[in-house]
């Protein structure tokens, strides 16, 4: 059993910044990260790829190099390729690394597991050739691989960024099919931040759109009824726009309509969560330092509510300051003094959020899919299956899971829990916040019996999710 003052789950901007801040205060830090290299998804592989593909990926990406370099600190142990499959309230984490189980205990725990793409169930979304826009970006960052013959569909500034990167890579997408309309933009204008950060963000968005227009990438706005055609592989995307049905042949479809906090770990710990109506997602309840309903567990970064990389790093530092104070390494005065400029910057970085949330709402058609559309990719459960179970008296997501198997596959509901909550909420005329989301139990990721058995003596009995 490895012991540390602080265990950080995730080596994205929040986790890396927190680790550095905590180590700077004299704490021993263990960073467990699933990926083979630090950076998280936003700075994925940045230490290796910045020099090779920095021009295509842009300076927001290459800026992540400093955080990765700072992980090289004598008080920080960074374990890449470590998949945490069980987290206990006492700070014990069981993980696997290349098939070998390990165990560690931290006096404090920081969950910095980032975001997941909001599931976008449309007809045909399980076909080979359909991926998330985030996946296309990861391919480009980590592998220098660009998806050709592609159409991007959904909503959100990430679509513009991915499309622009594809243009720079010499493989422009065939089209950008956007689900948000001009009414969304007009409504969002009310939230236009006076803060400079907001205008900078808008200017960046404008530059990306000019890049796309310059490359001749067709844009469709206010699209609905999106579907992917194909038997064994995607062959075309179809959608309604401007009163007509469009069909664009393509072999790659990249879907995206926002990201949501990855709450697998915080839910497995049975921490309090609430529904963020503006971002249409569940997030762990936390205070201004990131402290959750369990005082020894903190959250930072997109896993605590979507804010982007800048906010994530600042939140990571704030959590580290609170943890250093908890463990007696800094006094309250020093903690608060160091926190003040971080809070100011965080508020600036967050100024554009309400505008973005309103301008790029999730695609309605994917929140309320047709009966025949698969919502649980693993167990191939359709939206109609969930509605039928609901009609028989299934009320909550846990019952829906038990009856339909949605959420029982290896992804553990990562790509269906949000859809189930939306469908049940719509049927009951309420908000997903009232429906809640299903419990998450260890193992958080599939693990072999041999790996569990190897740790049997160290594990402190049934986890919090078991009952």
């Amino acid at each position, binding site marked *: 059993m490895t012991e540390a003052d602080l265990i950080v789950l995730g080596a994205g901007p929040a986790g890396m910044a927190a680790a550095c801040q905590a180590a700077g205060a004299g704490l021993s830090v263990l960073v467990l990260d*699933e*990926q*083979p290299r630090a950076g998280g*998804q936003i700075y994925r592989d940045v230490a*290796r790829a910045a020099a*090779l*593909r920095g021009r*295509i990926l842009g300076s927001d990406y290459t800026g992540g190099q400093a955080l990765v370099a700072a992980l090289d600190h004598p008080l920080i142990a960074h374990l890449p390729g470590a*998949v945490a499959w069980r987290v206990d309230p006492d700070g014990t984490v069981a993980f696997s690394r290349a*098939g070998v189980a390990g165990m560690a205990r931290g006096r404090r725990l920081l969950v910095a597991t980032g975001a*997941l*793409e909001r599931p976008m169930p449309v007809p045909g979304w*399980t*076909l*080979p*050739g*359909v*991926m*998330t826009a*985030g*996946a296309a970006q*990861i*391919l480009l960052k*980590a*592998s*220098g*691989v*660009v*998806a*050709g*013959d*592609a159409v991007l569909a959904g909503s959100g500034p990430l679509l513009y960024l991915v499309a622009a990167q594809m243009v720079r*890579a*010499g*493989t422009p997408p065939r089209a950008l099919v956007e689900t948000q309309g001009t009414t969304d933009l007009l409504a969002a204008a009310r939230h236009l931040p006076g803060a400079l950060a907001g205008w900078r963000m808008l200017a960046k968005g404008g530059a990306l759109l000019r890049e796309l227009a310059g490359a001749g990438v067709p844009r469709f706005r206010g699209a609905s009824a999106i579907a992917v055609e194909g038997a*064994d*592989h995607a062959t075309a995307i179809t959608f309604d726009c401007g009163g007509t049905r469009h069909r664009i042949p393509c*072999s*790659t479809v990249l879907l995206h309509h926002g990201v949501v906090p*990855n709450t697998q770990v915080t839910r497995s710990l049975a921490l309090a969560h609430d529904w963020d109506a503006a971002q249409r997602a569940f997030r762990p309840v936390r205070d201004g330092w990131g402290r959750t309903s369990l005082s020894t567990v903190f959250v930072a970064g997109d896993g605590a509510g979507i804010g982007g990389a800048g906010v994530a790093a600042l939140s990571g530092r704030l959590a580290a300051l609170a943890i250093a104070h908890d463990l007696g390494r800094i006094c309250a005065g020093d903690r608060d003094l160091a926190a003040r400029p971080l809070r100011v910057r965080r508020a600036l970085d967050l100024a554009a959020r309400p505008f973005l949330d309103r301008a790029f709402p999730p695609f309605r058609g994917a929140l309320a899919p047709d009966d025949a559309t698969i919502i649980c*990719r*693993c*167990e*191939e459960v359709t939206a109609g299956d969930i509605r039928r179970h609901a009609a028989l008296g299934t009320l909550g997501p846990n019952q829906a899971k038990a009856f339909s198997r949605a959420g029982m*596959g*290896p*992804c553990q509901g*990562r*790509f269906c829990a949000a859809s189930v909550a939306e469908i049940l909420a719509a049927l009951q005329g309420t908000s997903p916040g009232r429906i809640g989301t299903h419990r998450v139990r260890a193992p958080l*990721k*599939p*693990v*072999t*019996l*041999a*790996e569990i058995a190897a740790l049997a003596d160290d594990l402190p009995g049934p986890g919090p999710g078991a009952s």
Partner: protein
Amino acid sequence: MKTAFRDLAAGGASADASEGARVPVSFEGRALLLRAGANLAAELLVAGVMPFRHTPVSGAPRGPFCMMGACYDCLVRIGGVTQQACMIEVAGGMEIAMPPAGPADGGTDD
């Protein structure tokens, strides 16, 4: 096999030495030369491999969807272990197969 996925380095624009020399692996018996140390799912996509597996429920074809270890649609079988291709780096000699129909267990079933 034709593929929509293009390796930028192969275009000569940025010869990518850090991602390793090409090493032989096989997918379902088909011989492939992939970059050692590169992401396995990405390399298989460029090599034109699709699908990666068929679902245990309906037998539908699937390939990588999220590329970040969350969706499990990229499952392949290597050395008797079912694992996520997007979370693995290429090593010479890998014998890769589609996983048998049945739930993913992340482990051996013998």
